[in-house]
């Protein structure tokens, strides 16, 4: 395969001023449970080779998963360069990247039997706890290889392992439906599902009774998952260097100003060992580094790839990410710094309010402006410091920037939400609630 990368660069040398080849190969083995039973075993192999060229000052691009078809890649990349965006930057030269550990050989060694057993264990634990629950579960391991080389002399590669377990449960009574779920992922094998199961059992306990909240303004605790469903998309758009450059980010002219509550700090951290979002360098060969986005409520940096950075007169922050096409600024692993208040303390402070685990549809409105309006998919009523039951037919309405300006408290127990976000609970003193 490395031979192919060299062949492509050689072939392009006479046709374009600069060239870069990015190659991705992956193998994934998911074990899938449906309706409490093992349903399928799968193996998925995939690969792709992308070629970016600079010709006459413009960028051309092509991708293919036929490594034999070098001619298509070169011809298409050159053809598109006639119309492409201006090439305003240099491809990086060879660098000695710091080690970021993302590969554990044990992950590949987990047998199919072990994976099937993990799934059976989760399903039986939950059906014992709640007999009428129907579970879908997935246990998946994967390996991923990235190879990048360019005409400035860069040649770099890394290999990453991944393991993910997740379970979703549905409980239906008449037309009343409850959805619960949890997952965990790592570059290491995830062989202990206790945390996942405890979390689902807690959701089931809390949702056992139903409760009603009237329309009005109430204090709300967003759990880490609740935050993920409403706050993260607008924030990630606002700190995207490209959105800033276009003048569409509400944070664009706010660097160095006290925009958020001083308790609020936000980072992008691609170098945490064995975290699935980590990597030694980004998809353009720029070294990964922790990036402060917000410190004590003050916006500090935006995230950039090479091209956007050059347009903005900044350096790439190592956030060039690819999703099949050309790189663009992309976050890696987002960390919201934990505070010092326990969830119990937050609850005890609230006479009447909501505890929100998941909002549905909150990120489909005016995301850039920070307004959100979401249906409480999973959330509970708080009465006199206690969770009393699940609320339904309830919408909450807010603006991310206004809510994060005045935070009552931040939780002291941050947790991973998926593989790419670590967040604590956040207690907001007053949010509009509309209910039937």
């Amino acid at each position: 395969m490395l031979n192919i990368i060299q062949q492509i660069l050689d072939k392009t040398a006479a046709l374009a001023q600069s060239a870069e080849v990015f190659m991705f190969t992956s193998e994934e083995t998911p074990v899938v449970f449906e309706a409490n039973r093992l349903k399928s075993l799968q193996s998925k192999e995939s690969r792709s080779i992308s070629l970016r060229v600079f010709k006459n000052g413009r960028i051309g691009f092509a991708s293919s998963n036929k490594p034999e078809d070098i001619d298509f890649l070169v011809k298409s990349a050159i053809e598109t360069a006639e119309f492409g965006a201006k090439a305003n930057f240099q491809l990086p030269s060879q660098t000695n990247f710091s080690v970021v550990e993302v590969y554990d050989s044990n992950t590949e060694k987990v047998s199919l039997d072990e994976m099937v057993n993990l799934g059976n264990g989760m399903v039986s634990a939950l059906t014992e706890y709640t007999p009428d629950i129907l579970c879908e579960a997935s246990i998946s391991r994967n390996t991923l290889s990235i190879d990048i080389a360019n005409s400035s002399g860069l040649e770099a590669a890394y290999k990453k392992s991944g393991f993910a377990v997740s379970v979703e449960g549905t409980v239906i009574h008449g037309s009343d439906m409850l959805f619960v779920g949890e997952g965990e992922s790592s570059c290491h094998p995830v062989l202990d599902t206790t945390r996942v199961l405890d979390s689902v059992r807690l959701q089931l306990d809390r949702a056992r009774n139903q409760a009603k909240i009237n329309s009005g303004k109430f204090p709300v605790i967003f759990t880490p998952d609740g935050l993920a469903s409403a706050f993260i998309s607008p924030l990630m758009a606002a700190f995207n260097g490209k959105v800033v450059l276009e003048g569409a980010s509400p944070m664009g002219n706010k660097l160095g100003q006290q925009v958020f509550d001083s308790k609020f700090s936000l980072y992008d951290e691609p170098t945490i060992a064995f975290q699935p979002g980590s990597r030694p360098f980004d998809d353009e060969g720029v070294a990964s580094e922790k990036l402060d986005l917000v410190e004590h409520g003050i916006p500090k940096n935006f995230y950039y790839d090479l091209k956007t950075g050059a347009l903005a007169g900044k350096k790439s922050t190592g956030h060039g990410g690819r999703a099949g096409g050309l790189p663009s600024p992309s976050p890696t692993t987002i960390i919201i710094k934990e505070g010092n208040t326990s969830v119990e303390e937050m609850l005890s402070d609230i006479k009447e309010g909501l505890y929100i685990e998941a909002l549905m549809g909150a990120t489909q409105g005016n995301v850039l402006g920070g307004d959100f309006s979401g249906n409480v998919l999973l959330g509970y009523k708080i009465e006199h410091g206690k969770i009393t039951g699940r609320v339904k037919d309830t919408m909450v309405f807010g603006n991310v920037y206004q809510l994060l300006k005045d935070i009552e408290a931040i939780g002291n127990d941050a947790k991973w939400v998926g593989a790419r976000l670590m967040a604590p609970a956040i207690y907001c003193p007053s949010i509009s609630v509309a209910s039937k």
Partner: protein
Amino acid sequence: MPNIEDIAKELASKLKEHKADYIEAHLEDSVSSYITYRGKVLESIGKSASVGGNIRALVNGGWGFVSFNSLENIDERIELAVQEARIAGKGSSHLAKIPVVVDTASIGSKQNPVNIPLAHKKELLDSYNALIWKTPRLKTSNIGYGDAYKTSIFLNSEGSFIRQERSDVTLGMAAIASDGNQVQQANMSLGSPGDFTAMENLEGAVREMAAKAVGLLAAPQAKGGEYTVVLDPVLAGVFVHEAFGHLSEADFVYENDSMRELMVLGKKFGRPELNIIDGAAVPDLRGSFNYDDEGTPATKTHLIKEGVLVGRLHSRETAEKMGEKPTGNARAVNYRHPPIVRMTNTYIEQGETTFDEMISSIKEGVYARNWYGGTTSMEMFTFSAGEAFMIRDGKIAELVRPVVLTGNVFETLQNIDAIGDDLAMNQGGGCGKSGQSPLPVSNGSPHIRILKCLVGGK
């Protein structure tokens, strides 16, 4: 370099040699191109080619699935899929009978849109972007154009061998306005099964979109609460897709006793005026095809007829397990995924109420148009309008900020009390389910009126 036609011919006999209850193979060869703009400048342009396939095997009710890019060593892949199925299978296999089909079909435009010169595509998009930017107070714009041409071959151990070609074109545009303090946007999205001319002559719509984004800056927020809501065909189409279509997908029902009870055929879901249909046999739309990804011929399925649940969407497995007929709704977004139950072209059938009749009796209501998106949890749904107006004393009144509508699916279907005479289909959407996105679908409706719908707002 092996090609999919040769591999498919070789496979035809091999699939029958293995000890499995059923085996199928999908092989795909596709090309695509895209052009995106951010702001005034072209952001990216590229071309892509992809080849790959998968083998899916069924043994004792368990499935094995192996997907690949390299067309080498197919024998080993079949063996692996069968082994996997054997580990997963602990019961018995159930697949509805379908005819053995040997056929070649072409879906959508005969012309491969990827071959239209990039210069021509760029010229058209340049002209739209220039129009957007003529609007004062515009902050930025986004344009995303994409096209694709795909040859796929399906074959199974029962002897079916189906070669389908399909083309697809999509265009999404957004205008983003700002007055310094706040940001508002307006979007449009459209698609076609490969006909590039469907992307042409949109100057009026583009101008209108840009003006809307600016207009929203001065618009007030609707007061949250329950309203009588009128949806335009685009938004009503999203509603029927999200709120009812997903509920009709039998894979969520067939192994779930509570869902089977809830979704029992013959149950009344709406008023007698309500008819809902899904079908890939409805021609010339982005969700149209001749055969689904299990080789089942496309159909047109009534889901709700005169307010009563009469059908649902099936794969071969869900149909057999529920004792119903397969509907040809097993689809995979590409060869990397197994086919699952999906929608195709989903719509509310035309009624008789004119738009004026619909709004004339509303004292205070919301007229919601266009869409940003929508999701469902089966029981509850939310969908976002692209723009909204208040209705006051039977007339369309002031523009308000885009609203999010939410509700309980079952109550809301019962609360549809008027259906318009102006059915229109929207082709700009892509559907996502179980990590498979965006699948080409279309959805549509006439204008509809919903009583007591919850609107998010201050």
